[in-house]
């Protein structure tokens, strides 16, 4: 039975499922990483994802325009991010509680809007798979990597881009400085509030796109609470990846592929209780977290509000 897992169909299946499942995590966790690197913990990711998912879905349902849908998701995400920024940066509310508040707001609002504006679960035509010429024809690899939809490709391109911005640009330097030692950054003329507003808004936008990647690309449907805790997993993945884009990529892929693996274990009838199979990705996450927390330390100013003296 176990040896059934090592066939081409299963391995291709696991990797391509893993890539699809990882897509929303990548957007949301990379966005969350920028916020945390500048010192802001946003636990509202789940709510931002749900609102983004709803808005993108609604726009496709009404206009059939995928471009408008993504723009709308970006707009809503930016608003949610700005609001989170206003509450935590301007008003200096406790970040954890504010984030939970925004989670509940996003969930409630997406429910309400869905009930009032749509009401029934309907399928839409979302982003379809794009086969990249030549690369898509490579046996096995083409099937896994180069026959996905546009939002999947963009999610994976986001990782090196985020790495570049964070490590090779002045903006990235400012973000890191603000997250490590806002007083020092401030004394050197960095506008701490502005940098944090930027990262939290960017985080909102990316979380919103994460939601949209579910509702208009991977599933093409909206249902209340459809993100089912993925926003919180995304926050965990930032810790898992030690606040580094490639660490997050590794974490998202590992978590998603183990999830895909447990589905195959059940499909192939390998006698492991379903409860245990379902737990696999979480057990693994906890294991890696406990092992990695000892070495990776988060940004020093994480969750600390900054107030200019004088």
């Amino acid at each position, binding site marked *: 039975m176990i040896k059934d897992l090592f066939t081409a*169909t*299963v391995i*291709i*299946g696991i990797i391509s*499922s893993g890539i*699809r*499942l990882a897509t*929303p995590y990548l957007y949301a966790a990379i966005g969350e990483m920028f916020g945390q690197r500048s010192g802001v913990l946003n636990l509202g990711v789940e709510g931002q994802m749900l609102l983004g998912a709803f808005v993108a879905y609604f726009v496709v349902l009404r206009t059939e325009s995928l471009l408008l849908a993504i723009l709308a998701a970006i707009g809503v995400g930016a608003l949610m991010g700005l609001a989170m920024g206003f509450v935590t940066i301007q008003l200096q509310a406790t970040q954890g509680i504010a984030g939970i508040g925004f989670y509940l707001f996003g969930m409630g609002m997406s*429910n309400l809007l*869905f*009930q009032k504006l749509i*009401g*029934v*679960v*309907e*399928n839409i035509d979302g982003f379809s798979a794009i086969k990249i010429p030549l690369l898509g024809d490579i046996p096995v690899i083409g099937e896994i990597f180069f026959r996905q939809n546009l939002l999947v490709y963009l999610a994976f391109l986001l990782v090196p881009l985020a790495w570049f911005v964070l490590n090779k640009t002045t903006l990235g330097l400012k973000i890191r400085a603000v997250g490590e030692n806002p007083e020092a950054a401030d004394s050197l003329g960095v506008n701490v509030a502005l940098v944090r507003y930027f990262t939290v808004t960017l985080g909102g936008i990316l979380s919103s796109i994460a939601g949209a990647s*579910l509702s208009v690309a*991977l*599933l*093409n*449907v909206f*249902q*209340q*609470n*459809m993100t*089912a*805790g*993925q926003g919180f997993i995304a926050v965990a993945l930032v810790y898992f990846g030690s606040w580094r884009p490639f660490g997050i990529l590794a974490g998202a892929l590992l978590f998603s592929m183990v*999830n*895909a693996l447990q*589905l*195959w274990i*059940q*499909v*192939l*009838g390998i006698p492991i209780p*379903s*409860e245990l*199979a*379902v*737990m696999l990705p979480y057990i693994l996450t906890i294991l890696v977290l406990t092992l990695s927390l000892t070495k990776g330390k988060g940004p020093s100013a994480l969750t600390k509000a900054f107030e200019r003296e004088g």
Partner: protein
Amino acid sequence: MKKTIKLLSLLLITVLLVAGCTQAAPPVEEPEVSDQPLRVAIVTPSSMNDLAFSQSISDAMQALQKEMGEGKLEYVYSENMFVVDDAAAAIRSYAQQGFDIILAHGSQYGSSVQEIAPDFPNTVFAWGTTVDTFDMPNVHAYEGASDEGGFVNGVMAALLTETKVIGVVGPIETGDAKLYIDGFAAGVKSVDPEIDVRVTYIGSFSDVALAAEAATTHLSAGADVLTGSAQMVIGAIGKAKEAGAYWFGTQADQTSFAPDVVVASQVYHWEVILREIFAL
């Protein structure tokens, strides 16, 4: 063409079955005659239009409202109460507001009902899907025989599959989902024991993305007929639709979501048992 005819005859059988069941239902007993409408409050774990579990109770209430006539039955509801503590708060608040009957529509609400019911001896509580009334005089329990309809769906699925592989996308291995799935598997085996029924439980009632991936996994493992239970299956139905694989539904009529692939749905007619509960 042959496939279409087969499909049509199966559909006909289902319609007859449903019609048969309706006729077999006991005659309607009118609740005690009074001018006051019966006031019912419902607490559901998902939204009332989820095409699944919560929708089934919503449809039943609407049917009963029609049946009992204008002004005889009023109901309010709190939906999306997937957090059990919130549901408990809602149940208690409905009891305090003096509703006649409170329906806690979710097997996760049992302990809440057990805790709250003794404080309101004049309020009738009903919860499902279960058979446990905690030996309390004011608590009813209801359970659908979802394995029966599951068996019928299973027989039809067995007649339709060509690859001899059928995939099942389940939520958590419990309650009416487990009943349905076990019944379904038994139905398939009754036609052809050689057919491989592969069951996945994804560990969630709401994770649409994982349900979709489970369906994709079944499809790549060779399944050509799929079924599943609970509200997150819309993700799986979407994948069945893309692949042109047949889908069998349960809890509510799922045809509207993917008319081309949904062959038949087992529909929960809670009004049959609610009639009895209301009459008591």
